[in-house]
């Protein structure tokens, strides 16, 4: 298959504006981080300022996924940093992974989606459920950015209810025969491999690795998105695709397997979206101090100060929640419900901060002179992907009461 999204011939338009982002740290949360964590964060921040910020408005405006970023993410080490070194990862802890996601999404949620999917939804299941041969074959190339992966769970009629999926495979003796369609798949149009969840003859869900070029496999682009415009999104269509038997993930089956992947990804989103919120806050604070109305900066007006104070309060709460969740992840104690709470909280905080920041920017806030509107539109996707806002609420409701409300 040829790349379907990366067809642009004109060079990228580099912004003349310098990215001078500084992160708020009102509660001295940096003191909770190690020297290494701080270096990781600064490195990814420098990387984003150099490789993403100067171009992101152009990519988003032109609905362009910059395929070269995959190799650059690989070089900096943003793909699956928690995967052990022997498989090409960095053997990093979950606080480090969170910080990496925070800084990339500070740049753009679409860019973070590319990295999240590769790390948590492709490398994680291959590492956790894959055979030794599968790990050796795919993980180093995914870590280095030589390969791009995607994750196929959602279908057009099965979003919050993935257990109802129609995609299925049959055992044909020397191979499996896969049929079905997946929808809303980040990275799919440019992906080299897809980790696909499908049911076998007895209705049991299993993971299969589908490679680009297999006969009957296509990945059409979804057009017309007003969100995550610098990330590629598509379908996965399987029309009697013959899958070699060694491509089945042997380690785990049932809905619990993809849910474990989603936990890892949702954890990254919890950190990432606070990154987006910090970018909006930083931009709004600067703008409020520079913009003069009635002969004084608008930052001197009480209603602007209220907005900034509330933004900083919510960001600080989100930072603390994420940090604590990270320590629980590293201790192996984090629960899915705790991850749901953090993902849900962070996205809501980020969207509210983006909306308030938009107001502070006035008309300028709707242009690509500032990152606000792009973040806001991106976050509208993040609000409902990887578990909708409402589903995460109901996961918490289930946790509190012991009664599931959505089944």
């Amino acid at each position, binding site marked *: 298959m040829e790349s379907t999204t990366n067809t642009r011939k004109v060079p990228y338009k580099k912004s003349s504006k310098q990215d001078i982002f500084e992160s708020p740290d009102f509660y001295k949360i940096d003191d909770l981080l190690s*020297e290494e964590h701080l*270096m990781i964060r600064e*490195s990814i921040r*420098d*990387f984003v300022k150099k490789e993403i910020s100067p171009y992101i408005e152009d990519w988003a405006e032109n609905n362009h996924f910059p395929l070269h970023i995959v190799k650059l993410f690989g070089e900096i080490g943003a793909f699956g940093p928690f995967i052990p070194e022997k498989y090409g990862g960095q053997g990093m802890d979950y606080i480090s992974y969170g910080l990496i996601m925070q800084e990339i999404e500070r740049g753009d949620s679409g860019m973070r989606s590319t990295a999240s999917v590769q790390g948590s939804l492709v490398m994680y299941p291959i590492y956790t459920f894959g055979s030794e041969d599968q790990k050796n074959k795919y993980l180093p190339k995914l870590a280095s950015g030589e390969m791009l992966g995607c994750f196929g769970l959602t279908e057009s009629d099965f979003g919050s209810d993935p257990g109802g999926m129609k995609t299925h495979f049959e055992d044909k003796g020397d191979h499996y025969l896969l049929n079905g369609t997946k929808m809303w798949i980040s990275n799919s149009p440019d992906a080299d491999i897809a980790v696909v969840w499908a049911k076998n003859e007895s209705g049991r869900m299993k993971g299969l690795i589908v490679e680009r070029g297999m006969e009957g496999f296509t990945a059409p682009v979804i057009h017309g998105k007003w969100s995550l415009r610098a990330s590629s999104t598509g379908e996965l269509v399987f029309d009697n695709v013959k899958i070699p038997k060694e491509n089945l993930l042997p380690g785990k089956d049932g809905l619990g397997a993809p849910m474990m992947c989603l936990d890892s990804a949702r954890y990254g989103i919890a950190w990432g979206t606070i990154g987006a919120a910090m970018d909006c806050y930083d931009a709004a604070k600067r703008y409020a101090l520079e913009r003069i109305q009635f002969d004084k900066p608008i930052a001197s007006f009480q209603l602007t100060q209220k907005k900034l104070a509330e933004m900083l309060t919510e960001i600080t709460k989100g930072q603390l929640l994420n940090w604590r969740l990270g320590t629980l992840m590293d201790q192996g104690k984090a629960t899915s419900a705790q991850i749901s709470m953090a993902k849900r909280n962070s996205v809501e905080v980020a969207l509210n901060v983006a909306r308030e920041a938009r107001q502070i920017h006035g008309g300028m806030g709707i242009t690509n002179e500032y990152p606000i509107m792009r973040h806001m539109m991106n976050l509208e996707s993040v609000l409902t992907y990887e578990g909708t806002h409402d589903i995460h609420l109901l996961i918490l409701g289930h946790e509190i009461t012991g009664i599931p409300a959505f089944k």
Partner: protein
Amino acid sequence: MKILVCITHVPDTTSRIAFTDGDTKFDSNGVQYIIGPYDDYAVARAVELKESQGATITVVNVGRVETEPTIRKALAIGADDAIRINAEPEDSYFVAKQIANVAKDSGYDLILMGRESIDFNGGVVHGIVGELLEIPSVSSVMKLDIDGNVAKIAREIEGGKEYIELEMPFVAGCQEPIAEWKIPNMRGIMTARSKPLNVVDPVDTDHLDKLVRFELPPPKGDIKMIDPEHMEELVSLLKNEAKVL
């Protein structure tokens, strides 16, 4: 090839500068520290030379324990080991003497550093180190290629560039565009933790000067806006108030 890169631990270029103790001490409260930007070019070029023709890189810093995160960053970028000389970098002669002491008899082919630090901007350490070791020193080096035992160098001079060749060993004070700053990748950060960082005591050194006090430049004055229709007012202000005409 053995390369020694000398790095400073300096306030981030966006820091607000203030002094304490009767204007005799820099106020480090709330200041973020970085590798000196010119030193960072020297580190980057050393790593490029290591990648292209093989080398071992040692970084050295004169500083107290708080400089170690800065040293670790140089290790993460690609240096092999590090030496911290456990002392305040009090003045240029003191620092040069410490570096020369570490470098003598260690067989470094190249001693690289920034053309100047960006805190006190002395710009003389490379020269003094060269003198103390009795080897050549060049600055400000914009281009550095090694061919066998000979270095081909372009250095900035007033109004142009000078191209020179000299044999190793020598000391070079570096500046842009000798290399592009390198961002440490995650692999580099994880391996930096296990690279040796040796702490050594300083040698006794005379102080050739004594700090009296620092003084900040006067604050910028207010801007006066003048209506373009009233140019005579601008001329009058420039003549009588600013006294520049």
